[in-house]
């Protein structure tokens, strides 16, 4: 052994001691790693559609389309409708934001989401909608749609398709079939850009895919 290689001998004892201590600390059971994998797989297959609408439009949209899952959280005047499934929405015009464009602060806290999800439908006086307004978790889709204390849905990764339809009243009227939407381009929050479509386009691009999305895998 040369003088050069002896150079590291001074460190060996400390190095090996560090390694043993860390190995004891990192005695993580395989079951924990399996749980991590299961969580990762769920996230990977998850698709969430967020539609930013006013409370009224949110409920009208749900009633019109039959979407069963709603939650809120973007702000008092701008709650968020969530339809969740494990399917994609081909050709729907739904955009996917980048990681940097997503702004979690807009979503509010988990507690405020829960509170809004419960109070908004009641305030709107819509019994049927109130039945539908249930914050959804990954587990909800397969286990229990109406459990007592559900967790709110939060965006967990950047690959979420997003619809941010900010022309609320028009959207609501279009959703209700009362008005033909003007076809023009709208940019909102720097998150997404959508074309406010005609009624037929609206149905084809948003309502039907969302309806399919909301009713699949159930």
């Amino acid at each position: 052994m040369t003088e050069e290689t002896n150079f590291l001998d001074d460190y060996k004892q400390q190095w090996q001691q560090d390694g043993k201590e860390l190995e004891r600390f990192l005695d993580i059971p395989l079951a924990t790693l399996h749980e991590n994998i299961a969580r990762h797989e769920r996230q990977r297959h998850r698709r969430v559609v967020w539609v930013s609408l006013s409370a009224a439009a949110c409920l009208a949209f749900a009633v019109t389309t039959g979407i069963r899952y709603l939650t809120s959280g973007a702000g008092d005047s701008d709650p968020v409708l969530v339809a969740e499934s494990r399917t994609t929405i081909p050709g729907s015009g739904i955009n996917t934001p980048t990681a940097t464009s997503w702004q979690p602060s807009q979503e509010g806290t988990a507690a405020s989401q829960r509170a809004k999800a419960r109070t908004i439908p009641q305030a709107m006086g819509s019994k049927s909608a109130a039945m539908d307004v249930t914050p959804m978790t990954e587990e909800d889709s397969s286990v229990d749609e109406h459990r007592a204390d559900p967790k709110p849905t939060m965006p967990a990764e950047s690959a979420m398709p997003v619809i941010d339809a900010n022309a609320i009243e028009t959207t609501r009227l279009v959703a209700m079939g009362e008005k033909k939407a003007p076809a023009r381009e709208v940019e909102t929050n720097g998150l997404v850009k959508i074309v406010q479509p005609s009624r037929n386009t609206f149905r084809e691009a948003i309502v039907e895919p969302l309806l399919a999305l909301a009713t699949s895998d159930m």
Partner: protein
Amino acid sequence: MSEKEKYKRYDQLITRNKGLIVKVCQIYCRQDREQARDLYQDIALELWTHMDSFKKESSEATWIWHLAVNTAIDKLRVTQRRPVLVLGGQLPEQDAEEHPRRIDDLYEAIAHLSVDDQELVAARLDDYSYQEIALRTGQSEGALRVRYSRIVKQLRQMMKGK
């Protein structure tokens, strides 16, 4: 391969190579055990994600070492290489020789080596023989000896701040 079989294969992979994963956590997260715990689980998850892409072009140990180090660099945003490294202050050469060498400096210097060199020096610090390392990595003992000598020289220079 069924899901059950994949999990079984994964468990065997983790069990066989736990020491390597811990060693990478040791190099990159020695000062922060919680971070080391996170990194360990991140690496384990990466193994799950990529285990089907292992082509056996290198040994399993080397493949996992590369994957683990790359995960560490990615997760911890570690700059792997820097042109000039000053560790523990710039001591005059004579003082540096006599000064008790700091283990922290060694860790930092190792983190600046290439991925393959890290694997070799970590194994040698853990008293693995060249024969054992050769079996693990698929390289010849002679080549490992030559490379190790060069690495030690490099570490020595880095730790002197030269």
